[in-house]
């Protein structure tokens, strides 16, 4: 167990050092949601509220940033780096989790940026609620990044980017990022409930509004925890496997 924690920490620090050096990469990851905030937000605010939109953009950045985390592993397979790591005695879960946590830290930086700009435009959310929401999004980022790594190691390298970027769009729409899903017709509402991101998103909206102890928050936290546990377990199996 001590080895797992230590090696996870070492891989995390290494990944973070590399990620922080590539500031352009972090900026580009949050650029698209920021553009929504700036170019769509003022329009949206005439019929809705910033407190509805910003949580949606947080889910969007999570899917775009942590969801694409597997890209790094595609490169590491090609350059032989992953195989080099796999001949070390490091626990396989550490090789995955260290990476995933550093992707999740990148997401946290991007999420903070988004919320800060949102405040500038007129977002009014409870500070404690915002902190709790950022923690929840970081947890979701762990699950998403692990899932993305697992997908990357199961797809032909040239398929990863098209497959994941195509999957991201319906997932954002189904989460109700731009309009609450309660306004949707029955079938669309039902479909969106099947995706994990809707539950996390609604929890974030509750947290922003200062409603901390609701079933919605509980459901969002439970879904994020479950997703992370399942995806880290699956990802670790993929990292342990033969031909990775």
């Amino acid at each position, binding site marked *: 167990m001590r080895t797992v924690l230590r090696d996870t920490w070492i891989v995390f620090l290494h990944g973070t050092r590399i990620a922080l050096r590539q500031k352009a990469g972090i900026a580009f990851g949050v650029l698209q949601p920021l553009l929504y905030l700036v170019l769509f937000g003022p329009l949206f605010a005439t019929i809705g509220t910033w407190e509805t939109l910003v949580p949606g953009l947080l889910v969007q950045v999570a899917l775009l940033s942590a969801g694409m985390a597997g890209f790094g592993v595609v490169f590491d397979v090609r350059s032989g780096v992953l195989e*080099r790591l796999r001949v070390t005695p490091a626990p396989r879960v550490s090789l995955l989790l260290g990476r995933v946590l550093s992707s999740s830290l990148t997401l946290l930086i991007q999420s903070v940026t988004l919320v800060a700009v949102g405040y500038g435009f007129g977002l009014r959310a409870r500070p404690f609620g915002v902190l709790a929401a950022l923690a929840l999004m970081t947890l979701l980022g762990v699950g998403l990044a692990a899932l993305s790594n697992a997908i990357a190691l199961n797809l032909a390298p040239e398929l990863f980017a098209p497959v994941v970027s195509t999957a991201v769009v319906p997932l954002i729409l189904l989460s109700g990022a731009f309009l609450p899903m309660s306004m949707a017709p029955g079938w669309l509402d039902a479909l969106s409930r099947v995706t994990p991101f809707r539950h996390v998103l609604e929890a974030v909206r509750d947290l922003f509004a200062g409603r901390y102890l609701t079933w919605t928050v509980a459901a969002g936290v439970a879904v994020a925890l479950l997703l992370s546990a399942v995806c880290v377990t699956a990802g670790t199996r993929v990292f342990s496997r*033969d031909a990775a």
Partner: protein
Amino acid sequence: MIKTSGLCKTFPGGVTAVRGVDLAVEAGEIVGFLGPNGAGKTTTMRMLTTLLRPSGGTATVAGHDLLADPRAVRRRIGHVSQGGAVSPAVPVRDDLLLHAMLYGMRAAPARERIGKVLERLGLTGLEARPGAALSGGQRRRFDLAFGLVHGPSLLFLDEPTTGLDPQSRAGLWEHVRDLRERDGLTVFLTTHYLDEADALADRLFVIDRGVIVAEGTPAELKGGSASLDEAFLAITGLSPGEGAPSAETSGGSSSRRGAAR
């Protein structure tokens, strides 16, 4: 140091790359694993380094059972893969530090050890560069540094000099010899170059189409032949399925050279 029995590997797609390999390597030896392209050298080596799960057979590597205790094996071996493992975008120093620390070293001793290994391989001063800013020969020596940084007792080298210019090849041979002389390292290396096997190895195993077809010192394998080239042609010509060689086995420059005589 290495003992295998009936090691074999069939890939999920159905290709049987290795069909029952028996090897024995003693401590302190440099053993060459010689064979044409596609013979199953890399597949065998990836099994011995815990990267691939054998479909059958058993092996003890560096004193530990390959299947029962892969982590103990990993702790004691170094591996330089055929394709190399230097990240193009990350300063090699950072990757080396991560690598050493994953073997349980603390940061300060790890840095010291890295400095020593790089000095010995003539790489001092290049460590701040990313892989993309290194020459082929430099990159190959950094690959070697990754394999050595934790002080293994057994080193696996998969085609260490393929694609290098003659000078870099000779330099790398010197480093390998020196590692055995000064550190008593056991080295298991694959190659499809006969001159490399002849120059470097105490003992050779020749593999063709997934089976060991000959074993002995370079002198023994030469037998009456004037060169290892001729002996090699004779050996692989006698192997099962003789006649038209498979597509993979005709690609090696060595067999082409042999056939031209």
